[in-house]
C-alpha cells in the first residue's frame, strides 16, 4: 500500500536527521515515536519538521499527555504526546517529551492554532503549564475546580460540588466598549 512506502521513507529520514541525541522508538503499528530532548526541543523539532520537504508535516492530529507516575518512561512525571500528520504523504509521526511537575512546556499555538484548546485540556487534566499560550484556562472542568483529574493519584469518585453558576463573561479578554461615547459620536 502507498502509505506504507512513504511511512518507510519518513522513518529513514527520521533516523538519518533527527535521531541523533534523541531516542527513536516504534509503536505496535510500526509508527515512529521520537523522544524530544526537553520541552524547548519539541517546538524546535516540530518547526523543523514542518519545513522539511521529505517529511512535510502540516497537520496536528492530536496533542495530549499521560501520567508517568510509575517512572517507566523516564524519571519525570508526565509525558507530552504530539501526533503529527502529513496530508500529502499520509504519514504519522509521534513526538514525545518528558515534563516534570514544576516544569513549563512550550506552547505550539503559533505553529498550529488548533493546539490552543488541546493545550488547555492538558493543563486542565494534568496541570502542565504552557509558556506562550494566549489563554491558559481550564476547559472541561469548572473554573473553581481544584486538582487535576487525569493524574493517577486523583480518586475516580472524588466530587466537588459548586453552589451556583459563575459570572457571565466573554472568555479571557472581555472587550469592554464604552457605550455612551460611541453613541454620542454618531
Amino acid at each position, binding site marked *: *500500500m502507498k*502509505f506504507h512506502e512513504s511511512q518507510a521513507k519518513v522513518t529513514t529520514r527520521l533516523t538519518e536527521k533527527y535521531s541523533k541525541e534523541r531516542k527513536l522508538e516504534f*509503536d*505496535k*503499528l510500526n*509508527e515512529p*515515536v521520537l523522544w524530544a530532548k526537553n520541552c524547548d526541543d519539541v517546538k524546535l523539532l516540530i518547526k523543523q519538521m514542518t519545513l522539511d520537504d521529505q517529511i512535510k508535516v*502540516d*497537520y*496536528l*492530529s*492530536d496533542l*495530549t499527555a*499521560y*501520567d508517568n507516575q*510509575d517512572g*517507566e518512561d523516564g524519571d519525570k512525571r508526565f509525558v507530552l*504526546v504530539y*501526533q503529527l500528520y502529513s*496530508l500529502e504523504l*499520509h504519514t*504519522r509521526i*509521534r513526538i514525545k517529551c518528558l515534563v516534570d511537575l514544576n516544569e513549563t512546556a512550550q506552547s505550539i499555538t503559533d505553529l*498550529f*492554532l*488548533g493546539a*490552543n*484548546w*488541546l493545550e488547555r485540556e492538558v493543563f486542565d*487534566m494534568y496541570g502542565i503549564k504552557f509558556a506562550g499560550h494566549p489563554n491558559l484556562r481550564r*476547559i*472541561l*472542568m*469548572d473554573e473553581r475546580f481544584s486538582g487535576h*483529574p*487525569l493524574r*493517577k493519584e*486523583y480518586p*475516580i469518585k472524588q466530587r466537588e460540588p459548586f453552589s451556583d453558576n459563575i459570572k*457571565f*463573561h*466573554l*472568555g479571557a479578554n472581555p*472587550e*469592554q*466598549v464604552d*457605550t455612551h461615547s*460611541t*453613541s454620542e459620536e454618531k
Partner: protein
Amino acid sequence: MASLFNEKDQHQLNDFYNPNVLINLGPSHPAMHGTLRVMCRINGETIEDANCEIGYLHRAIEKLGEEKTYHQWMVYTDRLNYCSALNNNVAYAMAVENVMSISPTERCQYIRVICMELARIIDHIICVAINALDLGAMTVFWLLYHWREEAYTMIESMCGMRLTTTYARIGGMSYDLPDNFTERLWKFCEEFPKALDEVEGLLTSNRIWIDRTKGVGVITKEDALKFSITGPCLRAAGIDNDLRRDRPYLVYPELDFDVVVGSNSDVYDRYLIRLEEMRQSVRILKQCNKKIPNGPLWVNDRRVHIPEKMEVYTKMEVLIHHFKIFMEGIDVPKGEAFTCVEGPNGELGFYVVSRGGPKAWRMRVKSPSFMMFQAFEKTVKGGKIPDAVAHLGSVNIIAGELDR
C-alpha cells in the same frame, strides 16, 4: 439635525445598537444540538465576538478508561458520538486489537465496514435533516428520518439495540448477522437513494436554501489546516483527505468508492458533500453485501475469544475461561498505538497506552468535534445570529464527543 425620535425612544435605539450586548446561545436551546454554549457579543444582529464554553457533558470518559477493563469500557464508546455509536465501537475494538497485534477475520472485517457505513449514513442523515430543520425545512426532516428509523431497525436486528449498540468486541463481533440481513440491506440500498433524490429536489436548487447557506460559515483552507479540522468540513474546504483511502484499514482497499471534495467551504458545500457521501456509503454497502464471505466471525486467539454461550453452559473449562475474560479482563501486552478511522465527522482516534494487564494506562479519545468547535469560535464572528445556527448545524458537533 434633530433626532426623529423622542428622548426615550432614542435611548431604546441606543440599546439596540449597543456593542456591549452579550447573549448566550445555549447550553439548552433547540438549535444548539446538545449542551453547547456560545457566548456572543452582538452589535445589532452581527456577532462581533464569540466565546465557546464547553464541558457541560463532561463525564470523565478518559478517566474511566483507566479504571475499567477493556471490555467494560466498550459501552462508553457508544456515548461518545451517540449518532454513530457503531463507528466508535468498531474504532475502539480496532485500537485495542492493534495494541494486541490481532487482525480480525475477513467476515468480521466486512461486517465492520457495513457497520461503519451504516453509522455514517445515520450520522449524515441527522446532520442534514437537523440543519434543514433549523432553517425551517421540515419536510426534509420527515423524509430522511424515516430512513434513519429503517437503518436503526436493521441495526437492532444485528445486535438487539438501536442507539447505544455495543456491537463490536475485541477480536470479533458480539453476534453474527441475522438470517435475512442480506435482503434487508439490499432493499435499503435500493430505496434509500430515492429519498436522497427527493431531498436533493427539495433543497439543492431551492432559492431559500441557497440564500441561507451559500457563503455562510466559511472556513478558509488555511484556517481548516491550522485548526486541524477533519472530515467532511475539511473536504469542503478543498483538501482531499480521507483516511479510508489514504491510510486504508479493514477491507477498504478492496472496495470501490470516491472521495467527495468541495471548494467553497460554506454550509452549502458541506450539505452537498454529506449527500454525496451517503450515496458513496450506499455504494460501499452494496459491494459489501455481494462480497461478504462465509467463515469464522471470531479471531482464533484464546486471549480474546469470548466462548459460545451453549458451551459455557455445558463445559467446565469453557465456563472458567468465560469467567476469567469477564471478571479479570483480557491481558493486553505492554505497548501503544494511535488508531484513527474516518468517522462520519472526521478523524476519530483512540490512543491506547498499555502497561500490561486488563486496564489501559491511558485511553485518549481524539474527537473531531473538539477541533471543529474550536474553529467555530473564530469563524462565527462577523456573521449574523441565524447564520451561526446554520453554521453550527452544518459542522455537526456532537456534545458527547466534544466533552467526552
